[in-house]
């Protein structure tokens, strides 16, 4: 849940679009209060236009479906409470940091993949489309190339053009 909100922040949609509340079966009043609260928050945020956020939404979805994030989330308990075979445990804070870093990288990769799905592009064009710095794009592109998810298509002049696989 925290991760989804973090991702929504990353993608510029805003974490407040998702709200989590705990209510027991006996708390009708609380339910009414929370619904009013969530409605107010949403009203302040204004309408959400999914068309405008098509690219980030697709990338967020891809990130949440990525093997790396799924594994990390599934192993949370093991990593922070049980420890590995050497009895090494990560502190909650460190694990959170690790998870956020992994999520950010996966999100950037997902963005690049989504952009390359539209058409083959040069690094500079990708940076423009995704809003990421050129250096970050080339780092992630490198990783994608190693996993065979992107590759060199051709040279236009001396500029390499990449495509999705």
């Amino acid at each position, binding site marked *: *849940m925290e*991760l*989804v909100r973090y991702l929504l922040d990353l993608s510029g*949609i805003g974490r*407040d*679009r*998702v*709200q*989590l*509340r*705990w*209510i*027991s*079966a*006996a*708390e*009708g*009043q*609380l*339910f*009414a*209060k*929370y*619904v*009013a609260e*969530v*409605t107010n*928050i*949403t*009203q302040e*945020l*204004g*309408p*959400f236009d*999914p068309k405008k*956020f098509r690219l980030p*939404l697709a990338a*967020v*979805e891809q990130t*949440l*479906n990525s093997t790396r994030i799924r594994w990390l989330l599934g192993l949370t308990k093991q990593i922070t409470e049980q420890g590995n075979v050497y009895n090494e445990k990560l502190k909650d804070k460190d694990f959170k940091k690790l998870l956020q870093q992994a999520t950010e990288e996966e999100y950037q990769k997902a963005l690049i993949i989504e952009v390359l799905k539209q058409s083959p592009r040069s690094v500079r064009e990708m940076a423009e489309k995704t809003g990421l710095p050129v250096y970050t794009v080339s780092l992630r592109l490198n990783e994608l190339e190693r996993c065979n998810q992107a590759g060199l298509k051709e040279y236009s002049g001396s500029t390499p053009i990449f495509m999705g696989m």
Partner: protein
Amino acid sequence: MKAGNIEMNKSFEPKILAFLCNWCAYAGADLAGVSRLQYPPAIRSIRVMCSGRVDPVYIIDGLKSGFDSVFVSG
């Protein structure tokens, strides 16, 4: 047309997708209804058997299909 738009903006009715746990929030919502508590009509609820059943991707799907926000409750 223009006047209609302005009016729409003024009284913006948000559409909120709510995932309610069958055993907690859904029963809570039921109770709120039975005891005639007033609450905003903005939510569209989906009953799930447990709020742990809600996959993160569902939330994104909700936003994708045009809801203004998503409310998960258990």
